[in-house]
Structure formats: C-alpha cells, structure tokens
C-alpha cells in the first residue's frame, strides 16, 4: 500500500475536535432528555383519551417519522425565518433532534404502555388511586422497563444523527472533521479519527444505559432470557 498516513496533521486540531465532541454530546443529551420528556408527556396525555389531542399527536408522529431528519433540520433553520421564527444553528439543531427522537420515542413508549397488563391499571383504580398516580406509579415504570432496550437504541441513533446537523452549520464533531479535512486534505485520517470518537461516545452511552437498566429498572439492555 502506497499511502503514507499523516495522523499528526489531524491531531494538531485536537482542540477543535474536543470542542466538536462536546457540542455533539450537548446536542445528544438535550435531545435524549427533552425527547423522553416529550414521549412521556404524549403517553400521559393519551391516557386521557381526548380525540382531538390523540389526533394531533398521531399527526405529529407520522409527519416526523415519514420525513428525513435532514429535511426537518433545513425546514427549521432555513424555512422558519420566512415565518419570522429565527433561531441559531445549535437551537435549531436541538429542536430538530428533539422533535425527531420525540416522535420515535412516543411510538416506542406507546407500545410499552399498551403492554402493561390492564389488570394492573384496574387494580390501581380499585385501590382508589387517581389516574395521574396510576400512570406515574404503575404504568410508566413498567412500560419503561419493557421498552428500555428499544429506547436505548433510539437514543444512540439520535446521538449519531447529530452528525447531520453539520448541514445547518452547527459546529459539532462531523462539521469540525469536514473543516479539518478541507484544510489538511487528509480525508482518510480525519474521518477515521472522527469515527473512533463516535464509537467511543456510543460505547459510553451504552454503558450508561446498561447501568441504569440494571440498577433502576431491574432489566438489561441486551435482553437475556431469564429463568423465573
């Protein structure tokens, strides 16, 4: 192989790479926290069974799930200003990511909520618990435990999807890597380093989710057959 590797050219930009990684982490954390909030809120509101609200949530989920995240980001960053709503690139990125992961998480959580045995809910109301308390104490914990693996995968996907936000000039890791590549022309080295950083980030989050699953939900991320 003739190619001579020049990783040093990429490592000279380690400061920018760290900044980019921190921005990626920030975007991912905002997306995960707010996305889970959106999904939980939608699940809670759905138990009230108000037709108009149910319809609105359904429309939101279907529109977001059936359009590409990149197009959503362009619409928010370039399109909304025409309606007078202007936000900087990082805010636009967070909004796009939250809307996106919120929609997918809403569907995932809905499946979890429906999987909680209805006998539990009936028992709760027989004991005189208010609907809000039933949702918080009976439905939600069990639903989360059931769908935690799927939610974890979705969150890791949205972490990787932050790379698309480079298209609306958010200075996250992929954007920084593209700039390094365009200045040093070391495409291979730059993208290898970037891929390794993303891999490290996903392994880190996988570990965090596994820790939460074991210690707070009594389940594991990788479903193992349990002998009862």
């Amino acid at each position, binding site marked *: 192989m003739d190619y001579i590797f020049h990783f040093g050219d990429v490592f000279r930009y380690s400061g920018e790479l760290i900044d980019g990684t921190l921005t990626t982490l920030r975007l991912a954390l905002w997306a995960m926290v707010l996305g889970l909030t959106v999904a939980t809120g939608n699940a809670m509101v759905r138990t009230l069974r108000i037709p108009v609200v149910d319809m609105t949530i359904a429309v939101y989920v279907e529109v977001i799930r059936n359009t590409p995240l990149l197009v959503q980001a362009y619409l928010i960053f*370039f399109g909304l200003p*025409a309606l007078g709503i202007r936000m900087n690139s990082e805010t636009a990125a967070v909004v796009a990511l939250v809307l996106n992961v919120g929609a997918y998480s809403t569907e995932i959580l809905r499946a979890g909520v429906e999987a909680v045995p209805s006998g539990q809910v009936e028992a709760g109301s027989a004991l005189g618990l208010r609907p809000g308390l039933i949702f918080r104490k009976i439905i939600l914990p069990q639903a989360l435990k059931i769908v935690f693996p799927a939610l974890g995968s979705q969150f890791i996907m949205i972490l990787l999807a932050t790379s698309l936000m480079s298209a609306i000039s958010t200075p996250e890791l992929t954007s920084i890597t593209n700039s390094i590549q365009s200045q040093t*022309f070391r495409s291979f080295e730059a993208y290898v380093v970037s891929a390794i950083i993303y891999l490290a980030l996903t392994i880190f989050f996988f570990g965090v989710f596994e820790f939460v699953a074991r210690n707070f939900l009594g389940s594991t991320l990788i479903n193992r057959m349990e002998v009862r």
Partner: protein
Amino acid sequence: MIPRIGMLLMLGFALAFLPAGSPVRAQSIDDIVAKNKIVVGVINDLPPFGFVNKSGELDGYEAAVARLMAKHLGVVVELVAVSGPNRIPYLLSGKIDAVVATLAVTPARAKQVMYSIAYGDQEISLYASKSTKIDTPDDVRGLKIAVTRGNVEEQLVKTKLPSAQALLFDDDASTHQALLSHQADAVLTNAVTFRTLTKGAAADFERKLVLNRDIQGIAVRRGSFDLLQWINTFVAAAKLNGELDALHRQYFAAPLPPDLPTF
C-alpha cells in the same frame, strides 16, 4: 457486556478497511486517450461558474471549458458534480481525472495537486443587507458570516475577519440561503455568483468589502507532468485564439481578464 466474539468481529471489520484504497497512479495523456474519456469534476451550484441548466445537464463556464478541453484532446468528456469539500478528495482517490471547479490557486493546495495556468479568476467579497453598516473589516465584530467549506473563503474569514462568527456550510446554495433567510448577517462569496443567485432578493443586499482576488487553475494529480503540460498548452492556445474569451463572455458577459498569470 458485548460478547468477546462480537468485539473481535468489529475489530476485524474495522481493520479490513485499512488496505482499502489502492494507490492511484499519476496519469499520462496516453491513459486518457486509451480509455477515450476524461472525467472532470465541476461545481453544480455556483452560477455562472457551474450550475444545472433547464435540461438537467451540468452547465456553466467551467463545464464549457471542460468540454473544450475534451474536444481538443479528442476524447469524450464525462462531467461529475463535485463540491468545495470533496473536489480534491475525488481527484486524489481517482474518481475524476481533473478538477475544473472554481479551484482557486493556493500554495497549500499545491502540495496536494498540480495546477495548470489560470483559466479564470474570482473576486471574493463580503455581502450584507443594505441596512448593515460595514465599511472596514473591524465593523464585522459579532456578526455571523456564512461561508462554504473547502473554499478560500473558509480561510479568509479566519484570517481577515477574525472578530466575526463564521457559519460553515457544505455547499454554496446553503451558504447563500443562510443570508437570504437572515440566519447569517453577511456572506463571503464571489461577486458574479452573488449577483446571479440572489437576483430577485439581491435588491436588499450590497457589496461591502472586497477581500481578495483569486485565480483558478485546472488541477490534476501530482506526478501527472505529461497531462499537466498538455493542459497548459491547451489553456495558452485557447487564450491566444480567443476560444476562452468567447466562453467567458458567454457566461460572465465580460471579457476574459487579460492579466491571468502563467507559471
């Protein structure tokens, strides 16, 4: 956590990519004539340098220069759309034989590619809305300036306008869209493109500062001395007999600048 076999498979998969990328040789004229085709990378979103016309074909001054080059070489031309960040990687990885894509001549790039003598030029200027006051480079403090990655503007905004905040986009269309949607306060781009792209909306914007003049050269892979010499001959001849001037007038409504350097 992840089973050991899974980790080994991942590692093996990653390592399998290392030997990928067989060395791409420098080219001679015989190589191109033998395959009867020259693959040229051109920009597709920077009118009138490079754009897609009503029939969906790549068109523009540079596509025309590439076609003229192929005609003189006696081969078929295949135009490939490239962008600021990927035009040199495309060349170095062998996807294209030559770059005729508003590639400004810089010593840094000359370490990676070989440039022909200049066939065109561009003036890099700062554009902003008429109501924004920018008379000197210091007036841009705190403003957001949109630039396209991989262009000379990316470096220019850092060296000449460091007090501004740079918004980097991957293609020229997004960069200009950022100004039109007021996401950016100003845009650093070349004069002709700005006039063309923002025709309708351009009424609200004007040129504030002229930052640099660049010359553009056709780029080939390093070591392709044979091909480079032929391209230099072609450009010199096309300048002398007026073919290049005719193309320039057709796309820019202005004559070819008479002072394009040769080197």
